[in-house]
């Protein structure tokens, strides 16, 4: 009884399957390792650069603190939300409640297209129209509007999905009681869709916190604290520090860049963990019929 030299077909197939799964797992490791290294590098170098003065002093040349950049980022992100939330939420409501027709289809499609426009193109568009065209110069308003343009598609899409998950029976119950359209949407559907909308807004915050390219041509950079002017006054932001200070050949500049990166990454991480929890907690609730 001699075994054939070649492996049996079944064994061969098992080998190929094993190889396939190993390759799949290997590609995951190949992707996860850089991510872990990015987090590790930023945390290690960022924490060693962290100090109390970062939060109390403004940037002075290539040293000092980051107070101007931290507050600037918060101002720009809030400014973006002021424009993006109303537009995004209302557009999302339209798409979910009345968007079955041709117009809705087109907007839904173009919403995705807008989300795919490179952020530098949005930034340069704002530079041409707002910074030069309107004569606003580098300013909070120009920066905020550019960020808003970038996140509106996401807020609209999240809002639409949140409203679509509200069971139709609830709306019909409202109409049966004689409510008007506006009442049904704002008093019945909106409260149920709210967690989904908040998810979208959090997502938008996470994106705008980390953006650089659309702000370079619109918000500029400033070493000083924001003085409350909406136009004709540039403003600092954290991502600028990362990009610009790492290119300076000074240790203090590099330390600031990594500290800024740490702050940005921490905020983005926290929001993403929050998102994961929120999405998992809200989905079964919003989807369930009994409540």
């Amino acid at each position, binding site marked *: 009884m001699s075994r054939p030299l070649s492996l049996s077909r079944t064994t061969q197939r098992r080998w190929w399957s094993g190889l396939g799964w190993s390759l799949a797992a290997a590609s995951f490791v190949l992707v*996860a390792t850089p*991510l872990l290294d990015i987090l590790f590098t930023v945390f290690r170098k960022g924490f060693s650069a962290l100090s109390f003065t970062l939060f109390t002093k403004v940037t002075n040349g290539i040293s000092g603190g980051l107070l101007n950049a931290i507050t600037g980022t918060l101002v720009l992100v809030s400014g973006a939300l002021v424009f993006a939330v109303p537009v995004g939420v209302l557009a999302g409501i339209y798409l979910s409640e009345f968007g079955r027709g041709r117009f809705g289809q087109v907007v839904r499609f173009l*919403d995705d*297209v807008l989300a795919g426009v490179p952020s*530098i193109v949005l930034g340069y*568009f704002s530079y041409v129209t707002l910074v030069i065209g309107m004569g606003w110069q580098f300013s909070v308003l120009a920066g905020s509007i550019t960020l808003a343009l970038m996140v509106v598609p996401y807020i609209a899409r999240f809002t639409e*999905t949140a409203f679509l998950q509200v069971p139709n029976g609830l709306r019909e119950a409202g109409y049966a009681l004689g409510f008007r359209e506006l009442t049904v949407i704002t008093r019945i559907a909106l409260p149920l869709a709210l967690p989904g909308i908040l998810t979208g807004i959090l997502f938008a915050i996470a994106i705008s916190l980390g953006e650089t390219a659309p702000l*370079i041509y619109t918000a500029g950079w400033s070493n000083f604290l924001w003085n409350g002017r909406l136009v004709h006054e540039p403003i600092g932001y954290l991502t600028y520090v990362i*990009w610009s200070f790492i290119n300076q050949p000074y240790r203090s500049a590099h330390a600031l860049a990594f500290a800024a990166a740490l702050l940005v990454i921490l905020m983005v991480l926290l929001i993403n963990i929050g998102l994961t929890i929120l999405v998992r907690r809200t989905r079964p609730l919003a989807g369930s019929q009994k409540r």
Partner: protein
Amino acid sequence: MKLRPFRTVLVLITSLIPLALLAILVFLARYSWPALTFNGWHFVTGHLWDLGNLYADPVKRHGVLVPIGANYGILVFIVGTLLTSAIALLIAIPVSIGVAVFLAEGLRSNVRVVLSFVVELLAAVPSVVYGLWGYAVLTPLVSRTIGPALRTVLGFIPFFSGSIGSGYGLLAASIVLALMVVPIIAATVRDALARVPSETKEAAYAMGATHFEVVRRAMLPAVRTNIIGACILGLGRALGETMAVLMVSGGALNYFPDNIYSPITTMASFIVSQLDSAMQDPTGMAVRSLAEIALILFIISVITNIIARLLTGTARNVSPT
């Protein structure tokens, strides 16, 4: 007909989204029009970008005022954009499909939730942080380890031989781009795999296929269009990526890469890198030529996105899943 103020307001607000796209197209085209007529086709075929003499009096050429010796050709940046994106996709596509298969089919559901978070985080890392990591970790690694290894293995191909240099360049930019594109492709393919009807899988199992053969022979072919759509979506992202590329590409001006380690510049990162110098141009032609680059990028991104959406159908990268 009844007047419905609520709906009217909704329609007006909603139409801001298509209007925004239209405004981007119109205003970029209008602003860059003098540059478009002045540069002509030479803009995309010329490889020399020269702001000209910004201190001498500008001269009139083809009816517009430009600095003496000004010449705007972006072929180098077009080549840089296409090469980085192509190499990034070559790396990212097989890896993403592997990741998608691993996450969709290779794991128990409680592990899957945790490991899927890795892919979501990869998408969440800001591009400037990728750039920072590229600057601090990747470029030294490319110049000391990855580059020499690649040259030893593939050095017989001219594109992989030659001087490795500082590590800033095509290879580093492509690796960073690949990392940024992987989560887009992987997430789309993973979601598509999860939607494959169980009949398809069961039929394959019934034929005696192993689990991997079911994935390889039944499920992946079923989501082929989604994979292509996802890749085009990733391509759109790679073509327009700015900060990360800017920070690791080495910023080549006016010369073509001679090997995979050469410094390069992409269209998107060039716009940012020209911020200061272009604004010193008293005629404004440089700023208008940059607007022309932005216009070209806009049109490219719209086209790639439209193709990607048509292919992926209902699957979209904006959905909260």
